[in-house]
């Protein structure tokens, strides 16, 4: 196991000179499960490949336990990598797939057999050792790929979207198995995905990336409740956060607004410094409710349509009494019934409001909102999300309980 550090790591391909990964600083503690999360092309896989030794850093430093690894070949870094398509050797049996690496490094037949048997026991592969990959199901192949990474007793596990080839049921099941495996073995794990459910459920810390840059590194609950910028706010959550500009000369001193938004009295006074370019207001769809309490922010809107998703309803609306303003999405309880064209007032508690700098997109620090605690909310459809830390839970309707 190892502590991994990236200091100003960048990767530029010669073709067009555009940095794929740009000046990344990251510290991954020994035994930590870190997920690199972001959309396609954000540089997460390139970062993983740089750690594996499959790509050279253009600049910056990569350290394993303080030792500079930039020029150490991949096979000497002792990493176990799991690829998206598993990359199993199709012409070899499961046993040969698992033992190939050890045999390549000169480990004897007897010792290789012992290690394979041990790993096969952990991953329940004992009965599959004589089969070839094409004779295995998706989940079994995935376990073999994990086993191959595990069998060399790596200092770090690198996983590149390992669940994306599985169907949704198997994905959830395997996700749980991965979490159990990590809890049992405690190997430092770096996991790449574009699926926020995987990221938020598995990670000790999530690294949100976009355009080759790291946007935020935090615990899943913090990434969700206090996104560092508008990109993270939109990217995390399903649907992402509602964001509306609060620009204009009266942005700082008026709570009565003509665009259908009414902020709580004194809400903007908590802001330390007003950005010159204006602000954006953010509210998560699950924090909007039809039960408007005293002191809530209010959103007057006109209903466009409702999507019934079983456990909840997505209400799509436009701000303003005439429905001519910005778009709004709200996540309501399944019994909600609102006709298209109906006028509606939604409320959100002050602590669930987020403010961002309109120019830079960065979060504006205030005394509110604050990360909340309470019972649980679901980000995923239709399943509910439970954070690894049981102390951090949210109410399904976005209103703080207790």
């Amino acid at each position, binding site marked *: 196991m190892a502590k991994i550090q990236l200091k100003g790591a960048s990767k530029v391909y010669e073709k067009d000179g555009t940095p794929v990964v740009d000046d990344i600083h990251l510290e991954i503690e020994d035994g930590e499960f870190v997920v690199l999360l972001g959309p396609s092309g954000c540089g997460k896989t390139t970062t993983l490949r740089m750690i594996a030794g499959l790509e050279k850093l253009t600049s910056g430093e990569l350290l394993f336990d303080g030792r500079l690894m930039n020029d150490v070949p*991949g*096979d000497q870094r002792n990493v176990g990598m799991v690829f998206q398509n598993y990359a199993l050797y199709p012409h070899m049996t499961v046993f040969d797939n698992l033992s190939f*690496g050890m045999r390549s490094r000169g480990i004897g037949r007897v010792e290789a057999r012992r290690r394979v048997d041990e790993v096969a026991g952990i991953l329940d592969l004992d009965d599959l050792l004589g089969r070839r990959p094409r004779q295995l199901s998706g989940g079994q192949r995935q376990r073999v790929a994990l086993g191959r990474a595990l069998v060399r007793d790596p200092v770090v596990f690198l996983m590149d979207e390992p669940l994306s080839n599985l169907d949704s049921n198997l994905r959830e099941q395997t996700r749980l198995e991965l979490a159990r495996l990590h809890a049992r073995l405690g190997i430092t794990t770096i996991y790449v995905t574009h699926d926020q459910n995987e990221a938020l459920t598995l990670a000790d810390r999530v690294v949100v990336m976009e355009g080759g840059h790291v946007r935020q590194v935090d615990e899943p609950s913090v990434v969700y409740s206090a996104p560092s910028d508008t990109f993270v706010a939109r990217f995390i959550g399903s649907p992402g956060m509602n964001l509306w500009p609060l620009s204009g000369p009266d942005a700082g001193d008026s709570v009565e607004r003509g665009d259908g938004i009414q902020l709580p009295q004194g809400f903007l006074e908590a802001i330390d410094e007003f950005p010159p370019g204006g602000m954006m207001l953010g509210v998560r769809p699950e924090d909007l409710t039809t039960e408007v309490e005293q002191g809530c922010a209010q959103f007057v809107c006109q209903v466009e349509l409702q999507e019934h998703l079983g456990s909840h309803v997505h209400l799509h609306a436009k701000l303003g009494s005439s429905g001519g303003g910005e778009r709004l999405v709200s996540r309501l309880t399944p019994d909600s019934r609102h006709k298209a064209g109906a006028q509606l007032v939604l409320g959100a508690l002050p602590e669930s409001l987020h403010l961002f700098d309109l120019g830079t997109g960065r979060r504006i620090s205030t005394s509110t909102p604050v990360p909340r605690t309470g019972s649980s909310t679901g980000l995923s459809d239709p399943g509910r999300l439970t954070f690894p830390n049981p102390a951090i839970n949210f109410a399904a309707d976005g209103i703080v309980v207790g």
Partner: protein
Amino acid sequence: MSVTLSQVSDSELLTAIPAPAGKRRANPGFRRLSSLKNRLVAYGLMFPAIAVFVAFFYIPAGFLIYIAFFHWSILSSATKYVGLGNFRILIHQPLFWHSLLTSAYYTVVMIPATTLLALGIALLLREGVGIRKGGVWRAAVFLPHVTPIVATSIIWVWIFNPHFGLANYLLTSVRLPALGWLESVHWALPAVMIDSLWHSLGLYVIIFLAGLSRVPRELIEVAGLEGAKRPRIFRRIIWPLISPTTFFVVVLSTVSTWQAFSQIYTMTGGPHGGAGGPAFATTTDAVLVYQTAFIYEHFSLAAAMSLVLFGIILLLTLIQKWISDRIVFYR
């Protein structure tokens, strides 16, 4: 009167089920007509290709089998059934056995040389070891194959000219003795091989490149991460995964080497006859078939030789197939 389901026959039950809207129009008569029309169009489109194939392949091939068992002359309409007589004559012809041995020698050298060189060049082009602009190199390697072999063979005749050819110039410039090449009994066939190799290599390189492109890069990456060095990755990962391509190349080159004719004809004799020299050093089976038929006008004997050649190629292909079923890995 109530009717239970068991009282209704299967056919009644089926007619009671309404047919899907699209199917209702397709009554049996319409279906037959439509399928007849489709078939006519299909055969009409295939006709030109089939006609050419029948006229220039099946009829001559059938006629060849026929005359192999007869005494037949192009100048006389009298044909006489001789059974295996032509084959008996061949068995007692030392030149026929010599031609088979020459063909075998040519094949035994050419197949491994072609396969290994083509694979080596394909690996170099794929890995791009010190090579930029891979597309230009691929085109350069493939170019000889699209040039007519007669034209390239004439160039090689000049290169192998013992007195002022490039080959001997290069040999003597590194203090090696000049060779007789096409005038030497020992070097004439190797000279033809070099020409054939140069001409055919491009095709096999492209086939190998296609095969290599089907080996997922992740397999090579993961093997590298696991500590396997390049030779082991090639031996244990790449080689087994490209075995169908290798098998295809071996079959293709076996067939083409046993049939090699144009380059030998051009380099060793040309239109004035005498191809296959010097002293029959380059007389392969295909050359002997040509000479027997069109120089000596023993068409029946040449047909029998062709059948033997066909039998050898068929046997070799079956052996290769038998081996491939055991060692080639198909995904």
